[in-house]
């Protein structure tokens, strides 16, 4: 009996020591590192931001685990990618049992709200078409114009959970958007002479980027979204690329290199590896340096 009491006291002491302290900052948990950066830019000093999936990790495949539940259990606000890309986020939200962040509550932000979706599928969908997202292509953060929408969604969410900070959030939002607008001009200028050119991407993850900067998607290393490339598909695509004069293949750094390299060798095109998200590479710690890296590399290759 005495032993039981000692164990009970130890457990209680442990729990008390680990209990979340009251914090003046708004605790925000984003589904990935990109959204976390936007939340930090908008929230400034008034928020404490954490994230689930780090850059360099395929956002389609995230393994929900208990430590992530802890993050959400202590959150005042969550930001999800939406458009069915982060279905895994649902099980975490349910497990956290935190009424502040369940869908429909003040602290629930779907960052994709208001995004004009590209590649919105129609008709019957099934896995024979690959891993298709029913609400359209969810890789919208590669377009700076969409980051402005995301930032606004986040600012609205922050104002709901922290009304006292509304002026700060608005100011930060406008500062961010102003810089994005200005920077986009620079990025567009870099790629202005390449408008209309064809590129091949590994996955259909750059359609918003290509659309924003006037480039065209010629094909993908994957035969269909989410499916493993095959030598036959690569050979056929390489042949088509040579005939059309396609000179660039773009792949995020977390993708398998084998087939991209094979396609580059077969087609004579240049393989451009880009960071898969903010912070995926050294020196890409914010959206501007992240997008700079992509634009500079693509422009140099084109």
């Amino acid at each position, binding site marked *: 009996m005495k032993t039981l009491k000692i164990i009970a006291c130890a457990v209680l002491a442990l*729990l008390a020591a*680990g*209990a*979340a302290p009251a914090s003046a900052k708004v605790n925000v948990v984003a589904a990935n590192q990109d959204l976390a950066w936007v939340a930090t830019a908008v929230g400034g000093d008034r928020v404490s931001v954490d994230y689930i999936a780090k850059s*360099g*990790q*395929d956002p389609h495949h995230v*393994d*929900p*685990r*208990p*430590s992530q*539940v*802890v993050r959400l*259990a*202590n959150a005042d606000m969550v930001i999800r990618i939406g458009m*069915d890309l982060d*279905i895994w986020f*649902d099980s975490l939200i*349910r*497990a956290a*049992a935190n009424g502040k962040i*369940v869908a429909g509550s003040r602290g629930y932000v779907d960052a994709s709200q208001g995004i004009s*979706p*590209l590649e*919105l599928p*129609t008709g019957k969908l099934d*896995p024979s078409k*690959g891993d298709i997202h*029913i609400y*359209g292509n969810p890789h919208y953060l590669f377009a700076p114009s969409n980051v*402005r929408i995301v930032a606004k969604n986040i600012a609205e969410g922050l104002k709901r959970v922290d009304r006292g900070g509304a*002026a700060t959030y*608005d100011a930060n939002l*406008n*500062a*961010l*958007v102003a*810089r994005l*607008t*200005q*920077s*986009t*001009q*620079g*990025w567009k*200028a870099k790629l*202005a002479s390449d408008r*209309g050119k064809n590129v091949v991407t590994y996955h259909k993850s750059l359609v918003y980027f290509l659309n924003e900067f*006037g480039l*065209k998607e010629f094909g993908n290393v994957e035969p269909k979204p989410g*499916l493993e490339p095959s030598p036959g598909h690569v050979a056929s695509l390489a042949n088509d690329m040579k005939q059309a004069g396609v000179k660039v293949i773009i792949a995020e*750094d*977390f*993708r*398998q290199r084998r087939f991209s390299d094979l396609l580059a060798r077969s087609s004579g095109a240049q393989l451009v590896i880009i960071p898969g998200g903010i912070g995926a590479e050294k020196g890409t710690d914010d959206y*501007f*340096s992240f997008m*700079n890296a992509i634009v*500079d590399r693509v422009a140099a290759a084109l």
Partner: protein
Amino acid sequence: MNRIRYVTFLAGILAAGLPAFAHAEEAPGAPAGTPGVPAVPATTTEKPESIKSPAGSAEAAAPAQDPRDRQIEELRQAIISLQKAVLAGQAQPGKDARDLQIEELKKVIEQLQSRVEELEKRPATPPPADTTPPPAPGPAGAGGATFIPNISAVGNIVFGAGDARRVGNRGRFNFDEFEIAFQDAVAPKLRYDVFLSAEKGEEWKLGMEEGFLTATALYPGLNARVGRIRVPFGKFNPLHTHVWPFITQPSAETALLGPDGLISDGALLEYTLPTKGFFVRGELGGWQTSSEAEDGLGFAAGELGAYSGRLWLGKEMGRDHELELGFSRYQGRGTVADIGRRRVALNGVDLTYRAYPGPGRTFKASAELIDHQTDVPGGDAHRLGGFVYVVYRMNQFWETGARADYTKFAYPVDGYDWGGSLFLTKYLTEQTSLRLEYQYANSPLLGSGNGIYFQILFGSGPHTHNLQ
């Protein structure tokens, strides 16, 4: 007074339309350096220090701007300046007139923001005709909305070859299971998950593997589930067959919990403590056991009443490593051969380590120890079993692993089973995979020898499970 004039001036700009704004620096009433009132930005602006761009980057090469973008930029700078004025005003002592001015400034900010949004909706420059496909209409209804719940299907076909007693349905492709899931929210914080399963044993049978309602966040950290549930005993029992990393069931699960696992009807409370940095969850359930023991295999008690408890701990060790520890108990009363109704219980300990060594790669090692405890005259009879497995996912498409098993059988059956297996999985899509497993097992009761299994798993539709 200057503030009022400034607000009036901005309101006039809004009323007159944007072109007037380009000459704002010529307008009266906005002298630079007026305390608390920002100068209206002209065509050149200074970026806030905190977000200045790195020199030499692509963004620094901004060309002559499109007129629309320049107007938007000017408006934004005006908004930033006004917001700074609001913040500065709020920081000053005193009220009344200043508050009025702040309110007016806020209104002007809102009007300016609306104007920016309106401008942003206009095309900046005519886009190339062949780059932007128009968005297609939604999948259903004008807004693409539907009332259809999430419906998914998962099929499991297994081919087995090897020892006759060990490998059931050997020598043919056996459609082991077909699962159909319906999942949806029925009210805020209330959802249902129903998993119907058609299984092929001696004959096909249709049943409900799980079907429960979940009430989320009844109290901070507290969820409740009612219905038919795979009992949260250990890490493995709650898993559906199609999410196992191998084909065959660990023998300790078969012998001590049951060939279909431990499934019960009842209610479950799940409480996650508000700890920071580590995960602590307690789970308490009241049940009637619904899974059946077959041929001395499984848990034969609790059909009239049982309860379960589980303590689940988790600790992240850096972003790429995680350790979990669990303690479980399930207890009920059942008829024990020759001695009548007695208390029968299961006690379990599980330990899981996960690592994420690189893009697309995961490593998982998991071990479970199960004690089947029967109250018999003169004390408790304990029968121990357990298994350990490791799984390494090399990339998005390939996974391999190994498992070791050992178990005794539930009282009063005597005997043991031990063995091991190797497995390799090729993922074709997110829900479809091919798997190969080699198993060697040694058991007087279940049969000894080699077995080779080949599995085809396929599925479609949105299919999710609770945290596992």
